[in-house]
């Protein structure tokens, strides 16, 4: 069953964070709902639609950046009290906009996730979870890795409200309280979760999660354990999940899953008869979608999916059919509302232009004075630098609230910049002097087309070569400024955290003994490997497991004060580690006692792991080479019957082969490189 939704733009607010828009419950049956939305300027606003015009109910004054918004209320009453968190404060507003709560959580860091349930308030800073009841401190929990989101499960089966944390180390932590002491069981998932929501399917014990690598899944939380129900893979590489909601937009009586991604995709998944989620609708907005909810906003009786994008556009995808407004006389009639809207906009623009001109003049005048300083406020950049598991490359996305003029990429390590189809910017590589004094290995400029607010790039790194990638973003905004963002390329950049490793593989070991503290060795590990929490973990010793996304080899790091053990089936990983660690230790003037235990089988094992991949790629390359010649033969002879089945097969599958070949540029060369480093690592 396909659905068709039409896009309607409502209003634009400031730059928004994730989970900052909610629909207030409607008062009557099928009446339109009001929208509560908070932005990074600290403005909380609430509006409703009246005859196609957005009418504000209230709007607060600007303040600190609001990072989350949630609705709450006493149990049994409509959940229409609005809670926002900014900094370490939680504020409450009634639906009329009257503030009734200003609660200082007394956390050293600012709150980045919040959940409200009845009188209970759950807040999370980077690593700390805190629970308050009626603003009284109840309990807290220190997580092993960064907390991205929080939600709570409550149902009759569970005795009380159960908080669930989504942590950066790919774990959902389910907390349970026994008096003051907290124990938890965790549920491991495939990617770092970024979003959690109570689902509204059958019971309240299920939780939908979304990951930064674009997967959506459902888990059922039980008393002692959790079970996965389903997971939607991100085959088409559509971008990470930023928001999810469940709402019956299709109208078949079953709640559908609404998904918003960071590349602007909005999706609706329905459920078929077997209970499997299937994609029913897809729409691409130009910016990342920060919040999504199903409801009824624009017009009575028409359900819609309401989305908020990064730059603050509130957009509805409505089931209301679009009217064909072609009137007589071959003219498109613009509805009166839009016309008046346009006129007011134009008038506003003119006024603004006058004011801007004055501003410019004033700015010019200040440039004459010798004592004045000039500084331009920092504009916000929404950036993400993540490792893609499938093609073992990093993707860098940059999003600015106004159009980007140009981007300069500079790197002091050799990296490859890959072309992204969606990207329309004109890229130009500049000659660089890789030797001192400047030490640039990559200098590239992206000149963007008008109205580009989002840029996506792909970068391929080489393990063992480490340094920084810097992006200078210049938006099209007067007075012109540019901002630099730095991204570390770590020595073992292609490694990814996993939960466990296969112990049966032949392993090489590297052991370090020396006078170093736990914090020191942890900082070295953070320096070498991605996805390790920066905070020194609690406890005496710690173990992290990794796998190489390119070759599939593994690494286990176990360390404590004065001692560190690393084992991997890939000898080049071990050699890179020992190189970097000894360099780091020398910097701190710490004497390291390094011992190796090289397992000769491991080389064979790694080569065997590379072998099928290499063979497959070689075969693919050979087949692709043949395609053109075979096609020519086919045209020449009129048919392909005379060819041997193998060749006929290539011809039949030529489209697939070509597509696969195109998807993995230079894959073969990279494998050769990996092969060589393994051999070199031996010596």
């Amino acid at each position, binding site marked *: 069953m396909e659905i068709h939704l039409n896009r309607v733009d409502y209003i634009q607010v400031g730059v928004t964070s994730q989970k900052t828009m909610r629909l207030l419950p409607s008062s009557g049956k099928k009446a339109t709902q009001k929208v509560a939305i908070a932005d990074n300027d600290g403005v909380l606003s609430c509006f409703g639609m009246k005859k196609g015009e957005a009418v504000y109910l209230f709007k607060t004054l600007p303040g600190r950046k609001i990072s989350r918004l949630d609705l709450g209320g006493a149990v049994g009453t409509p959940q229409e009290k609005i809670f926002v968190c900014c900094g370490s404060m939680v504020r409450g507003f009634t639906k009329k906009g009257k503030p009734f709560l200003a609660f200082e959580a007394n956390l050293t860091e600012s709150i980045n996730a919040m959940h409200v349930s009845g009188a209970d308030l759950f807040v999370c800073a980077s690593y700390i979870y805190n629970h308050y009841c009626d603003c009284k401190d109840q309990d807290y929990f220190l997580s092993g890795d960064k907390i991205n989101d929080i939600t709570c499960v409550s149902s009759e089966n569970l005795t009380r409200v159960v908080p669930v944390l989504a942590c950066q180390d790919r774990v959902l932590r389910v907390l349970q309280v026994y008096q003051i002491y907290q124990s938890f069981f965790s549920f491991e998932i495939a990617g770092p979760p970024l979003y959690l929501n109570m689902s509204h399917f059958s019971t309240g014990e299920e939780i939908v999660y979304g990951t930064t690598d674009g997967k959506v899944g459902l888990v059922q939380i039980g008393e002692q354990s959790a079970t996965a129900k389903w997971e939607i893979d991100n085959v088409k590489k559509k971008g990470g999940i930023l928001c999810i909601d469940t709402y019956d937009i299709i109208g078949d009586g079953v709640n559908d899953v609404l998904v918003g991604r960071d590349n602007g995709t909005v999706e609706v998944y329905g459920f078929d008869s077997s209970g499997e989620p299937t994609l029913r609708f897809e729409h691409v907005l130009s910016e990342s979608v920060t919040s999504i909810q199903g409801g009824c906003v624009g017009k009575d009786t028409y359900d819609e999916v309401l989305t908020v994008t990064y730059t603050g556009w509130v957009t509805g995808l409505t089931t209301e059919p679009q009217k064909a407004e072609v009137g007589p006389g071959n003219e498109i009639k613009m509805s009166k509302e839009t016309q008046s809207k*346009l006129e007011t906009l134009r008038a506003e623009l003119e006024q*603004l232009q006058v004011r*801007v001109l004055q*501003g410019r003049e004033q700015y010019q005048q200040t440039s*004459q004075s010798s004592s004045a300083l000039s500084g331009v406020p920092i504009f916000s950049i929404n950036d993400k630098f993540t490792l893609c598991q499938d093609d073992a490359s990093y993707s860098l996305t940059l999003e600015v609230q106004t159009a980007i003029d140009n981007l300069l990429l*500079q790197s002091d390590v050799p990296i490859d910049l890959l072309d992204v189809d969606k990207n329309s910017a004109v890229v130009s590589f500049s000659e660089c002097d890789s030797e001192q004094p400047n030490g640039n290995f990559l200098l590239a400029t992206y000149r963007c087309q008008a109205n580009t607010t989002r840029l996506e790039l792909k970068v391929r790194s080489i393990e063992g070569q480490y340094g920084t990638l810097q992006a200078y973003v210049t938006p099209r905004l007067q007075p012109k400024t540019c901002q630099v963002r730095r991204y570390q390329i770590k020595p073992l950049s292609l490694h990814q955290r996993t939960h466990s490793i296969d112990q049966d593989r032949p392993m090489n070991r590297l052991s370090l003994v020396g006078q170093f503290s736990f914090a020191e060795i942890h900082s070295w590990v953070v320096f070498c490997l991605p996805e390790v929490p920066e905070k020194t973990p609690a406890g005496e010793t710690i173990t992290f497991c990794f796998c190489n996304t390119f070759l599939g080899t593994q690494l286990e790091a176990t360390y404590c004060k004065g001692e560190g053990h690393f084992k991997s089936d890939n000898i080049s990983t071990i050699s890179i580690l020992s190189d970097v660690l000894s360099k780091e230790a020398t910097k701190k003037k710490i004497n390291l006692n390094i011992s190796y235990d090289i397992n000769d089988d491991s080389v064979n094992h790694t080569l065997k792991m590379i072998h099928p991949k290499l063979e497959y790629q070689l075969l693919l390359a050979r087949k692709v080479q043949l395609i053109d010649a075979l096609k020519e033969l086919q045209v020449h002879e009129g048919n392909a019957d005379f060819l041997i089945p193998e060749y006929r097969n290539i011809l039949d599958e030529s489209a697939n082969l070509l597509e696969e070949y195109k998807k993995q540029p230079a894959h073969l060369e990279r494998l050769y490189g990996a092969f060589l480093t393994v051999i070199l690592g031996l010596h």
Partner: protein
Amino acid sequence: MLVPIFTLKLNHKINPRMVAVGTFDGVHPCLTAATQAGKVFIHNPHVRGQRAAAHRLSHSSQDSDVCLLNINQSVTCLTAGQLGPSTVGDTLVVGSQTNLLAYDVHDNADVFYKEVADGANAVVLGTLGDIPAPLAIIGGNCALQGFDYEGNDHLWTVTGDNVRSLVLCDFTGDGKNELLVGSEDFDIRVFKEDELVSEMTENETITSLCHMHGSRFGYALANGTVGVYDRSSRYWRIKSKNHAMSIHAFDLNADGVVELITGWSNGKIDARSDRTGEVIFKDNLLSSVAGVVEGDYRLDGQQQLICTSVDGEVRGYLPASKDLRGNLMDSTAEQDLIRDLSQRKRSLLMELRNYEDNSKCVSDSDGMGFIPANTQLQTALAVRPATLVQKAHVELSISTPNETIIRAVLIFAEGIFEGESHVVHPSAQNLSGCVKVPIIPPKDIPVDLHIKAFVGGKSSTQFHVFEITRQLPRFSMYDFTAEATAAPPSGWVTFSINDRPQRVVMWLNQNFLLPEGVDSTEVTFSSLRGRGLLSISMASSGQVTLRTDDIDLAGDLVQSLASFLAVDDLSAEADFPGYFEELRTTLVEVDEFHSVHQKLNAAMADHSNHIRNLLVQAEDARLMDDIRSMKKRYRELYHLNRDLINEYKIRSNNHNALLACLKAVNQAIQRAGRLRGTFQLGSEPRRSNSAEAQLLVTPQWESRVPCFTFNLWVGTAAVTNPNPN
């Protein structure tokens, strides 16, 4: 929104830019395109299975609508149109690296088949200037040739480099067509018959040209630029990261004015307004576009825009009906408008906020990158001769007057860097308030340098961006030398002008990087590209003498000075003994290559006879069950084959060398022409140099005699002034 009215999937690859529509029987339009393996296919859905296969033509067994035409050489260009005066339908013209074939598809017969030594990279059909018969004009290796339907050569002239695109268009507005030629030296040249009337310099190879209307034409470059010229001034251009494969003029929104339709390498097709370049329609094919053409493919009296992809996908679009009102994109135009206005409002608000916060001037936060408000960037250009560590270059130095630092400098300029930009990003230890950028322009062209410098404090994360535009003078790679020590160059050009010496000094100052206070008309430069000295002197009589051994440079100087002084007609005397000596050896080489070529041809004919014999013998042996001698024969055949392949390699090397020499000769003619500085728009027609060249060179390098005639002519042209006007 505009949707295709028909889509076809032809199971043939289509070579890029080799697509045409021809009504070969006078009624039914057929899509004709070059495909792999030296074939041309003709898609004719209107007349099914009526023609028998014969001669070159054969029916494709896959698809009954498609006929295949065997050319047996890789096709390099193709077009269709009216050529003969008495034929019913269109003639198909197919060019390859060595031949040109005009073919009557309807009668299935060759109209003519010509050997063209310079190859045919581009072809256009139509009338040119006062030549009454329609011509098939081909552009090859620096040469242009036009043939009428009998295969007679009506036009021969040379151009600066390999021709990549051709179009006929009434450039001067005199009611007669001129020929526009885009070539690999980045120039668009306009020929009025065989006389060069105008020249526009771009910054990449011109891959496509198309006539829009009147004197307006569209162009596409190899670096992804597409634009529109009106006469010699550019209207607009845009650049994309994709490459424009094909451009075509078509009135898609039915407003009476054609739009520029571009087919891109990523499969995108867009239609842009000819005035502004604004996109009014776009669509996507599944693979790279091969060609965009038009024709009445549905036979309903309306022209359709037909877009083809390299994989054989064909889409046809009808011009928009009236009620779409030119709104082809989407029905949500008003929403887009609101969105656009809101975006503008947003950015204005942000700008305003910037000014407000700037005046507040909170000076504590370090990341914001505060700089003194009166910071101004200084730029200077200077010529730096070669040192031990660095090649000779023009140095652009950018500096701040105070303690602020320059984090990075971006220079956007066309045609002087590998890409479109050059970046200087000093490492964190070497940050300072002064950045020196070496620039080595590869050609003598004036360039606008758009400089963006990121200025801030050492630890800032946000920088102020200073944007400055500087012009690099045309002849910046010449270093002023006060007194010349080396021997003066032997080559020279001299001509007289009726202008004050001050004007020449002004020209010198605008086009060279002179040290301050030089105001004499006697100057000497040394070329930073290592091409010796250049001296310019002007006598009080107005006699200007340029001394250099570089004939190209002399030509550029004459053209530049002539256009600066607005001289339409200039007669010059010149002699370049070094260059002419080189030319002479080249001509001798050409001759040698020719005789080798002929010898090899004779050898090949011998071999092929031999092969025929061997084959017959081998087959005879096989029929008579004499396996041993059959094997022997085939072995011999195998050896012979190997010899032939070897010979082929020699032949192709020889041929390439020959082509290189011919190119050099063609360029020599072109250069000699430039020296005389002809700027002749609308004045009385004059015998041009290329016309003379044609007289002397037409029997192309077939024997020793014409080569030397030409040689002598160049000599005399140089010494005396053969331009009595």
